[in-house]
């Protein structure tokens, strides 16, 4: 009959050394895994924020008057009126609206009247309420877009 005997000759010094190596490497690894996780979350946030912002922008672009813009912006949760009107809507950590305020998407509307129409300066940006852990750079603003839309009093429609 064959018998296999495990004969471990492990000294205490070796165990201590192994634990020390593991602990030292663990600190670096955990940081690395942490940075990787939150870098991935940051990348995903950018993509989702970009999709939401672009969608809102395209909706605004499709309007034919400034009144339609204001009607659309009533769907935003908060409104600050002034020279520049600011509208904000909030999202939770899974980017679901009306169930948290981890992320905020803000639209700033500045109206300029000219003799023949109205020019709307639009600035949309997405922000995170708290900064990302492990990542020092980047700030809390995730995405930002600036553009303009002109609404003429006469004409301006797309030809057939």
């Amino acid at each position, binding site marked *: 009959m064959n018998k296999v005997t495990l004969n471990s000759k*492990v000294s205490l010094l070796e165990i201590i050394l192994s634990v020390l190596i593991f602990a030292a490497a663990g600190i670096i*690894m955990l940081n690395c895994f942490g940075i990787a996780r939150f870098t*991935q979350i940051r990348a995903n946030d*950018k993509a989702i924020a970009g999709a939401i912002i672009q969608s809102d922008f395209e909706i605004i672009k499709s309007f034919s008057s400034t009144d339609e813009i204001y009607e659309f912006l009533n769907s935003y949760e908060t409104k600050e009126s002034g020279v520049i009107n600011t509208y904000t809507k909030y999202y939770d950590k899974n980017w679901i609206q009306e169930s948290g305020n981890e992320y905020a998407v803000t639209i700033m509307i500045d109206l300029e009247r000219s003799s023949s129409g109205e*020019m709307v300066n639009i600035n949309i940006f997405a922000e995170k309420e708290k900064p990302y852990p492990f990542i020092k750079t980047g700030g809390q603003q995730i995405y*930002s*877009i600036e553009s303009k839309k002109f609404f003429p009093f006469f004409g301006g429609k797309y*030809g057939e």
Partner: protein
Amino acid sequence: MENRTNVSAGMGGTLIITVFVVLCLMIFAALSFVTAYSDLKLSKKAQEITADYYYIHGKAEEKLSEISDILYDIDINEDKDSILRKLSVIDGVSVDEENSSLLYEVSGEKNQKISVTLNILKTDRFYYEIEAWNLSNIELPVYEDEIIDIWEGIE
């Protein structure tokens, strides 16, 4: 008769295993960071291109506003040449006298441009109608022709 086999990790065996495990975990950590970072770079690149597109869109709308203001101030009885002369003053706008249309382009920094064609129309006042609003590349990549011999099959 009994055969006895002694399996021993020996001195330093634990250390070697620890170093190996740590090395593997380090590689996993580095790889996950590299993947996440390349995703972030891709998202940033997409954001830059999108922001550039909306910037040139805004510039094109600004030009539209300039044209609209000029058309608004033109007297309805003014002759065609005078109207086209006034419109050609706008920087970057070219006038197509034959078709009574205006053309202009706004270029971005990320190899994209918006080309706009407007028709000038008249009822009780002059106004424009957007005939074309196209987004395109400024420079297209040049691909060299490559002739590949393919199998023609059995007759």
